[in-house]
């Protein structure tokens, strides 16, 4: 199907704001932080000009931003926030709260390094640090995917009642202009129905939310055995486990509606005959694709696996995609201090017990905005090819592409 709508030249932040507008968000609360600030500016402009019928709340902190969104969502409004780095870290408590309350809030995370020392440039330490908060995490490779993912995110979130975070690299995408197809409002309205809350906040039918919950199940006044704290946690895990199916379905339907299909949790590039696979996330996938092309020209059978969805972690999809690999080179723009890059750990854990017996190498790259050149990725893959041996499947710690 051909693309519809109109094509505009947009930076990533503007694409995110357009995505929110097309999704008809009703409550926006955000606090400025580099490199996210233009998202909040753009959305407040839409609201002030009357182009978007929403409540814009200029809060005093990120903690309050997400508190506004969670309570607005409890009332039944579609809520939007955006942040980066320290701002996301400051929201940490509320991230848990939103997921625990099963509120389909949306957050655009403009990936930025986290201090100390201060650094406003890109890596993915911020969102990776929030991976255990119960949010779905989707990573965009380019500005089109930012916009498309936001529209899909609301469909996903409001189907499974789990909040969704769409992550995109600060400056690399947020401040870089690219052609972006803007779907028409009518098409988006057809794709994205209004939010139906599972919560009731009505004096005529008074319910209380998020009360203290016992460890064990407890019978309610009608005699029904209700969950304990642990059962509620199980249900959140179950929702995330099952959300893969929804993510795929929504991605396919998005393709049918707009001509751009998102039918997988992964981005696969030339994996069919590849015995060496580069794994990356976010805009780094684009760089990795350039590196793979260079390596292909040199005669190596290299493909790229981009993780589009990081939570729920698409374990089965990853195993299938890596079936033929003999060498897997994982580039992480984050570090789980004392171990390795988080993506690498997830890949290793996915492969455990599978038939894939590949050498795995992990490289930490691009922290705090350090430029990642395709040439450096090529060198890293070449080094890995040389060191790949049956008795040297994995290394205790990752290598860093830096000057030390």
């Amino acid at each position, binding site marked *: 199907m051909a693309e519809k709508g109109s094509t505009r030249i947009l930076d990533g932040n503007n694409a995110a704001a357009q995505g929110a507008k097309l999704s008809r968000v009703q409550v926006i609360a955000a606090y400025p932080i580099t490199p996210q600030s233009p998202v909040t500016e753009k959305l407040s402009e839409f609201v002030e000009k009357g182009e978007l019928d929403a409540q814009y709340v200029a809060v005093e902190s990120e*903690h*309050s931003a997400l*508190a506004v969104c969670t309570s*607005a969502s409890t009332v039944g409004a579609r809520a939007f926030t955006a942040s980066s780095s320290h701002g996301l870290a400051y929201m940490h408590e509320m991230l848990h709260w939103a997921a625990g309350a099963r509120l389909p809030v949306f957050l655009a995370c403009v990936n930025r390094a986290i201090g100390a020392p201060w650094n406003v440039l890109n890596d993915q330490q911020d969102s990776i640090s929030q991976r255990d908060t119960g949010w779905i995490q989707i990573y965009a490779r380019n500005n089109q995917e930012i916009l498309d993912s936001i529209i899909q995110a609301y469909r996903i979130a409001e189907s499974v009642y789990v909040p969704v975070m769409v992550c995109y690299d600060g400056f690399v995408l947020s401040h870089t202009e690219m052609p972006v197809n803007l779907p028409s409002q009518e098409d988006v309205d057809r794709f994205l129905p209004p939010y139906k809350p599972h919560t009731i906040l009505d*004096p005529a039918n008074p319910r*209380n939310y998020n009360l203290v919950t016992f460890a064990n199940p407890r019978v309610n006044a009608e005699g029904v055995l209700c969950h304990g704290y642990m059962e509620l946690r199980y249900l959140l895990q179950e929702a995330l486990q099952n959300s893969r199916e929804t993510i795929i379905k929504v991605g396919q339907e998005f393709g049918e509606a707009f001509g751009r299909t998102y039918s997988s949790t992964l981005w696969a590039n030339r994996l069919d005959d590849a015995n060496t696979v580069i794994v990356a996330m976010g805009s780094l996938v684009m760089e990795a694709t350039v590196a793979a092309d260079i390596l292909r020209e040199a005669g190596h059978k290299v493909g790229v696996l981009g993780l589009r969805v990081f939570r729920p972690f698409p374990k089965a999809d990853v195993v299938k995609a890596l079936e033929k690999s003999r060498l897997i080179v994982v580039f992480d723009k984050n570090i789980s201090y004392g171990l390795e890059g988080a993506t690498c750990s997830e890949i290793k854990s996915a492969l455990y017990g599978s038939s894939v017996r590949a050498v795995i190498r992990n490289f930490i790259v691009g922290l705090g905005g350090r430029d990642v050149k395709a040439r450096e990725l090529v060198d890293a893959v070449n080094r890995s090819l040389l060191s790949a041996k049956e008795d040297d499947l994995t290394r205790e710690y990752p290598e860093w592409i830096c000057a030390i």
Partner: protein
Amino acid sequence: MKTTAVNLTEKEYALPGNRTCPGCALSLAYRHILKALEGQAIVTVPPSCLTVLHGMYPITSVTVPCVNTPFASAAASATGLLAGLKALGREGPTVVAVAGDGGTYDIGIQALSAAAERQTDFLYICYDNEGYMNTGNQRSGSTPLGAISGTTPVLGKQQNPKDIVAIMEAHGIPYVATANASYPLDLYEKVKKARAIRGTRFIHVFSPCPPGWSFPFNNTISIGKLAVEIGWVILYEVEDGVFRLTSASESIAKQGNLKPLREYLGQQGRFRNITEEQIEALQRWVNARWKRCLDRAGN
């Protein structure tokens, strides 16, 4: 018509058999707060004894809708409720944040100050039991000088509390008031009045805590009244900048003098280690504040 015990509505929104301690001033105050709101409210509550009162999932002892929210976020949560209601065209119920002194003076003040600055159309009620009672009585920004608490266990608190009501008044909001669980009808009237005002409204409710302050359960009301008689609590309201003493404080201003502080302190175990110097300092603090209020009231 003046509200009295005889004509006050019988309808209860806080049900019997809740989880608060016997003689809880919060439980009493909340009963009357909800009566004044006639149940037409959406309440948001951060961790506090009120969380305990609202109960344990899947049952609540309160018949108004409520959303619990993390400690720092009561006013932000109220902002979100309001924004959501507005976005959906469901305005009507009063949005009320009810927090303790810890959630107001300390961890919640940033969000509260910002919500007031944004002129958020909500009612914020701080019930003040002068410490972190829900976590077992630790010192807060509201704990009085000389009071023993879990974190001032030997020497007692070394500082005076901050004047949260003055801080809120400085935001230029249309209504601030002080109330006291021992004067439920005065509290009721103030909540009723605040409910009808648009913009940010702040009511401070003094709430004696029998286990936290170490006094017998049955003395809650008398301790609260004594607090007014000695001037520790001054009942007043400031409506659009106009200051007015109310209830017992108004009578005391007209008819005479404050009782000495000593009687009040002697009835509470938390002041068992207070020194003469601290009593004098407390008395000076009380006198200065009382004088300011008298001056403002034009007495």
